[in-house]
């Protein structure tokens, strides 16, 4: 499985879209850094250097965080579909590996790429912002936030990889983004409801979002945990319940996707 895991990296580091995104990230870091230097001298003279650096890093984290979902969808789509399109899948599955091993290894490889991309971007930003402010810009909260963000990334990759087996790249891209929006909406709608209020005036949209809220991971809640870590805010009450729900539903959908892939004719 090691060979297949590293083959996922080998496949993606030539991917032009990934190279383009990496270049854009570096441009954003350098632009932010130049802006930071300017602000430090002209506008934010009254702020401490440490505060300027930390705030820049937080702003940068938000930018990278919003991109990471797109990168996760893109890499997720390519992880298995590119093997099907190139004809490599049949050759790969003729080796003594099960389809479950193949599927999960590709997902794990893709997940590692996106998290590595995220981590390297943050390290680069921290180094440059530290140099610009002559202060060590570092927060453990950023690394904690990265752990929670990576949970979101994993599910998005899993979903994109599975949907792309049946549908084209564009359809998968649109479908996953729409589903993520519905998942966020459902989380917001039902996340803070009192139980007594839940069953009042239950319409079609309520039923639909309620099902989504319970059957799919609450990515919005996980993303909120990430923000809490980032700004060192207290976690919401019962946060662990949402975390357990995430692991339960991710395990459920992973099992459904793997079973479905294993039973399909290629």
């Amino acid at each position: 499985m090691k060979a297949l895991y590293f083959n996922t990296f080998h496949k993606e580091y030539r991917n032009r879209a990934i190279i383009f995104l990496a270049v854009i990230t570096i441009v954003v870091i350098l632009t932010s850094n130049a802006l930071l230097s300017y602000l430090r001298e002209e506008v934010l003279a009254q702020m401490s250097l440490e505060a300027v650096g930390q705030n820049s890093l937080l702003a940068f984290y938000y930018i990278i965080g919003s991109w990471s979902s797109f990168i996760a969808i893109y890499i997720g789509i390519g992880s298995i579909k590119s093997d099907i399109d190139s004809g490599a899948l049949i050759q790969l599955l003729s080796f003594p590996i099960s389809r479950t091993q193949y599927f999960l290894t590709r997902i794990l490889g893709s997940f590692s790429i996106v998290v590595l991309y995220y981590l390297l971007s943050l390290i680069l930003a921290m180094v440059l912002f530290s140099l610009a402010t002559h202060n060590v810009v570092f927060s453990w909260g950023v690394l904690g936030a990265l752990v929670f963000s990576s949970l979101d990334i994993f599910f998005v990759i899993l979903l994109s990889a599975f949907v792309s087996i049946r549908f084209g790249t564009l359809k998968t891209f649109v479908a996953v983004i729409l589903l993520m929006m519905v998942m966020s909406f459902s989380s917001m709608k039902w996340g803070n409801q009192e139980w007594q209020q839940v069953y009042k005036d239950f319409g079609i949209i309520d039923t639909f979002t309620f099902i989504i809220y319970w059957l799919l991971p609450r990515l919005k809640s996980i993303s909120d945990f990430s923000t809490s870590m980032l700004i060192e805010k207290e976690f919401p009450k019962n946060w662990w319940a949402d975390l357990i729900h995430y692991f339960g539903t991710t395990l459920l959908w992973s099992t459904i996707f793997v079973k479905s892939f294993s039973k399909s004719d290629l």
Partner: protein
Amino acid sequence: MAIISATDVSKSYGNIDALHSFSLQVSEGSIFGLLGPNGAGKTTFVKILLDLVHPSSGNVSLCGLPTLDPRARATVGYLPEKYSFYPYYTVQGTVEFYAQMQGLTKATMKPAVDVALEKAGLSELRKRKLSQLSKGQLQRIGIANLLLCPHQLLILDEPFSGLDPIGIKEFKDLMFELRKEGRTLFINSHGLAEVEQLCDEVCILNKGRKLAQGKVKDLTKGESLEDFFYSKVKGD
């Protein structure tokens, strides 16, 4: 012992019967040919052997293990009809990757890769990228993959497609050599002349059903395999 054993295998795609109660036993150490016109169900059967397609009913085993068990494929080498892999890999990189996928260790990999490249006639092309190779040269990478491990069973899907006459001659010689080593070769082919020369036994399939099976000489009774095949399929 039968290295391939299929009993009452059926496969339908909607209303179309790709295979209907198909049974087949292939004995160890032979060269076996599966023949049939386009749409006969040959590729479906090869895909069932590799667990890429699941039969609607019936049982299939390789070397005594059901095809659902990934360990069954540890004893099998496969050459696809249309060889394709990542174009940015080099010839050597591809064969090394295959060696790793087949569980070869670092210590055993290098000599095995060198021997496989040499036998497949790819030693001089080892640094080339797959995107720079011709169809016939790509097919040779698939052949190198077969030679990496001492597989008991080699499944060859249209093995001569893309090879030039020299390549076909060399590959036929290689097949005889592999049989001498005690390996079993299962060939799915349209190349009747090659099959007649190579195979100990053949099976003719049409519209998902078996029309004939046996030793080539016993079936043809002096006719050419081409004439026998034509009369069987047209008479069906």
